[in-house]
C-alpha cells in the first residue's frame, strides 16, 4: 500500500468558503496557564449527562473522576485542575442554556491523580485497552462529542474492514488538528495503532485535505513503520470532514440513511485529536481533561493554538490572547459553519470545543432573510443530496409527513445550504427545527 497518496475522489455537493486559516496555521501549540477556576458541565457529550460523584467542598486532584457515566451512551467526567469543588449547579453552557455543572476553584498546584500506565499496550488483550478508554471519558474531539467507546464496541453482526482517521479539519479558521498532526504525529500514530488493536482491524487510512501538506507529510513520516496505515490527501471542500462524506471520499462507500451507522459500511471513523486522547488514556492513564483548540478571528489580539484544560472560561482564554477588539460583535464556539454563537463569555470550553472565534462587525454580518428565488444553489451544495429549499418550505407549512419523506432526518446540519443561499435564508436552521419536531413526534408514538 502506497503511503502518502493523493486522491481526487470526493463526495457530491459541498461548498468552498474562504479558509481564514492563515492567522493561526503556522503557530505552534502554546499551553494556557492553569486557570483559577473551571466550570465542568455534566453534559459535554451526546447521551445521558454524567452523574456527580463528588460534593461541594471536596478537594480534588487533576485527573480525578468527579462524575460517573450514566449509562452506555455516556462518559465519566474528570477534574481538570487541582483544588476544591465550590459549587454544583446550573451555569451558562455554550449551547446558550444553563446546564448542571461542577465548579472547581484551583489552589494553584497541579497535583495529578495517580494514574495506571501500561507498558507495551499493543501486546495486551483488547479488553483492558477498551476499559482504559471508557474510564478516561473520551468523546469524539472533532466536535460531535459522541462517546468514543461506543464506536469501539461494534455489535457482533457488523463486520468492519477499515479504520478511518479524520484529519480533514474542513471548518474555516480552525487549525488545531493541523498543529497536532504537525507537532504530535507520533502520538497520533500510537493512538491509531491502539484503535486498530481495539477494533481488531488491520488497515487504517488517514484522510487529510490538500490545504495541509505539512500535516500530511508529518503523519506519513510518523506512520512509515506501519505498512497498514496510509495517508490519503483529498480535495479541500467543506464538509470533507463530515463522517459520511469522508467515508465516501476515501472508500467510495455510502453509509445508508439513518438509523444506519458508518459500521454498516464496514468502517469506523475517529478524529486525529481523539487518537491522541486514546493514546494518553491507554499509555499514560491520563483521562480526557485537556485539548488543543484554535483561538482566531479578526477581533482577538493574538490568534493562537492553545492547549487548554476542560472547563476553562472563555474570559481566561481571551485574557491570555491579549484581549478582544472594541468592535467585537460575535463569539463563535466551534467552527464558523457549525459552531454556536455565544451569549456570554462566561461559558466554559468543553471536551469537544475545537475553536473560539472572535468576530468583528465586519465579519459577523447578520442578514435579512428574503424570498427564495429558486436558484437551486442549496440543492447543489447539499452533500446529502437533499433539496434544502423544499425542506424549508415544508417546515414553514408544517407538513411533517412530507418533511420526513423528503429526507429531513438525513440532514447532517453542515450548513452548506444556508452558506450558499443568495436570499440569506437560514435553511439549515429551519431544517433543524423540522428535525426536532419529527423526533419529538417519533418519541410520542
Amino acid at each position: 500500500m502506497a503511503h502518502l497518496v493523493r486522491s481526487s475522489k470526493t463526495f457530491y455537493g459541498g461548498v468552498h468558503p474562504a479558509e481564514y486559516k492563515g492567522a493561526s496555521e503556522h503557530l505552534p501549540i502554546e499551553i494556557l496557564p492553569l486557570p483559577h477556576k473551571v466550570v465542568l458541565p455534566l453534559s459535554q457529550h451526546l447521551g445521558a449527562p454524567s452523574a456527580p460523584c463528588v460534593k461541594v467542598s471536596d478537594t480534588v486532584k487533576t485527573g480525578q473522576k468527579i462524575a460517573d457515566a450514566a449509562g452506555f451512551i455516556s462518559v465519566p467526567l474528570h477534574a481538570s485542575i487541582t483544588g476544591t469543588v465550590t459549587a454544583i449547579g446550573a451555569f451558562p453552557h455554550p449551547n446558550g442554556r444553563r446546564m448542571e455543572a461542577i465548579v472547581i476553584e484551583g489552589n494553584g498546584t497541579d497535583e495529578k491523580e495517580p494514574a495506571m500506565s501500561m507498558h507495551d499496550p499493543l501486546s495486551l488483550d483488547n479488553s483492558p485497552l477498551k476499559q482504559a478508554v471508557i474510564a478516561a471519558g473520551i468523546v469524539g474531539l472533532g466536535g460531535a462529542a459522541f462517546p468514543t467507546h461506543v464506536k469501539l464496541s461494534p455489535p457482533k453482526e457488523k463486520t468492519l474492514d477499515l479504520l478511518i482517521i479524520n484529519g480533514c479539519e474542513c471548518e474555516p479558521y480552525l487549525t488545531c488538528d493541523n498543529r497536532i498532526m504537525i507537532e504530535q504525529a507520533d502520538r497520533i500514530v500510537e493512538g491509531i495503532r491502539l484503535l486498530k488493536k481495539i477494533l481488531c482491524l488491520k488497515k487504517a487510512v488517514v484522510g487529510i485535505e490538500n490545504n495541509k501538506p505539512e500535516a500530511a507529510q508529518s503523519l506519513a513520516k510518523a506512520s512509515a513503520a506501519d505498512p497498514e496505515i496510509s495517508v490519503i490527501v483529498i480535495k479541500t471542500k467543506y464538509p470533507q470532514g463530515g463522517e459520511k462524506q469522508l467515508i465516501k471520499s476515501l472508500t467510495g462507500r455510502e453509509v445508508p440513511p439513518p438509523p444506519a451507522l458508518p459500521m454498516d459500511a464496514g468502517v469506523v471513523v475517529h478524529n486525529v485529536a481523539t487518537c491522541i486522547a486514546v493514546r494518553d488514556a491507554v499509555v499514560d492513564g491520563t483521562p480526557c481533561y485537556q485539548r488543543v483548540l484554535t483561538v482566531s478571528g479578526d477581533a482577538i489580539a493574538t490568534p493562537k493554538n492553545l492547549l487548554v484544560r476542560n472547563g476553562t472560561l472563555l474570559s481566561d482564554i481571551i485574557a491570555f490572547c491579549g484581549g478582544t477588539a472594541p468592535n467585537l460583535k460575535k463569539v463563535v464556539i466551534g467552527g464558523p459553519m457549525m459552531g454556536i454563537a455565544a451569549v456570554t463569555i462566561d461559558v466554559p470550553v468543553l471536551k469537544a470545543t475545537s475553536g473560539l472565534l472572535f468576530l468583528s462587525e465586519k465579519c459577523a454580518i447578520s442578514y435579512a432573510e428574503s424570498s427564495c428565488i429558486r436558484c437551486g444553489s442549496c440543492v447543489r451544495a447539499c452533500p446529502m443530496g437533499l433539496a434544502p429549499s423544499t425542506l424549508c418550505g415544508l417546515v414553514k407549512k408544517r407538513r411533517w409527513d412530507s418533511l420526513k419523506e423528503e429526507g429531513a432526518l438525513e440532514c447532517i446540519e453542515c450548513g452548506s445550504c444556508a452558506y450558499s443561499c443568495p436570499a440569506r435564508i437560514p435553511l439549515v436552521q429551519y431544517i433543524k427545527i423540522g428535525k426536532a419536531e419529527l423526533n419529538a413526534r417519533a418519541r410520542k408514538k
Partner: protein
Amino acid sequence: MPEPEKSEPIALLAVGPSPHLARSDDTQRIMLSVVIALVPAIAASIVFFGFDSIRVLALTIAACVVFEKVFLKLFKNEGRIDDWSAVVTGILLAFNLPASSPWWLILTGSLVAMLLGKHIYGGLGHNPFNPALIARIFLLISWPTCMTSFPKTRFMADGISSATPLGILKTDGLAKLQASLGGSPFNLALGNVPGSLGEISALAIFIGALYLFYKGYIRWHIPAAFIGTVFAFTGIFYLAQPETYASPVFHVFAGGLFLGAFFMATDMVTTPITSAGMLLFGFGCGLITSVIRLWGGYPEGVAFSILIMNAFTPLIDRYVKPARFGKIKSRKP
C-alpha cells in the same frame, strides 16, 4: 442549590444560527449580473435600431421599476426595490417588443408584467411564469399588428416595416425566405434582420450569457437541451424534405431562440432546481418551439414553449429529485 454566578456582560454579543459565514453573492448581485450580461444585446439593439431602441428600453425599464414600487407598497410586500429584479424584467420585456412600439403598448406591457406576471402571486420568487413573457403574450394576442410589424434595421435597404424571417417562412414559404435572407447566414447570426428589439443578435446574446456561465448564475443544461432539441427536431425534417423545411441552422439562429434559451428559460424562479429537471425543461421547450414553428399558427414558438414549460416546473420538481446520499448500495466488506 447554590446561587448561580452573576454574569456581567461586557458587551452585547450578536447571536444567530450557524453558519456564521455566507457566500458573497446575494439576490441583488445575481440580478445585477443579469443586467450586465444583457448589455451586449442592448448595445446590438442600439446599433441596429438607433434611438428607437433607447426610447423603448428606457421607457420599459422606468415603467417596470415604478410599477414594482407601487405594487410592493400596495400589497405590503417586504421585497426590496433595489434588488434589480424589476430592471431585469424591464429589459427582457423591451427585448420582446418591436423598436416601433408606441408608448401605451409599453406601459400596458409593463403593467401586465409586474401585476399579472409577478405581484399577483406575491412578488419575487413566487411567480410561476416568466413575467416578461406573460406581458409579451398578452400584448401579442391583444394587439397582434403592433406586435408583429417590425422596422427594418438601419443597415437594410429601405426603412419600411417588414416581417421577421420566421414570419416570411410561415406565410410565404421557404423560397421567399431564402430570397429575403440574400443567401447570407451571417446577417441572421449578427442580427441584421427584422425582429423585436433584443432577440435579433444571437451573437450579442451569447456573449452576455458567457458572463453568466462564468459567474455560475446560469447553467448549461437548459440552453443546451433547448437549442439542441430545436436543432435535432428541425434537422430531422430538413433532412427528410429539404425543399419544404428550413435548415436547422436557420431555426437555431432565427427568432427569439437565443434570447429565450439563455435569458428567459434560465430564469431561476420559474424553472426546475435540479440538473435533470433542467434538461427535461429544456427538452420540452425545444420540442414545443419546433412544433409551433413547423406546424403552428404562429411563426414563432419560443415564448409559448417557455410559458408552457413554466407550468410544468412544479411537477418536474416534484418527480425529478436530487440523488439522495446513501441510496447507492455499499460494498459489503
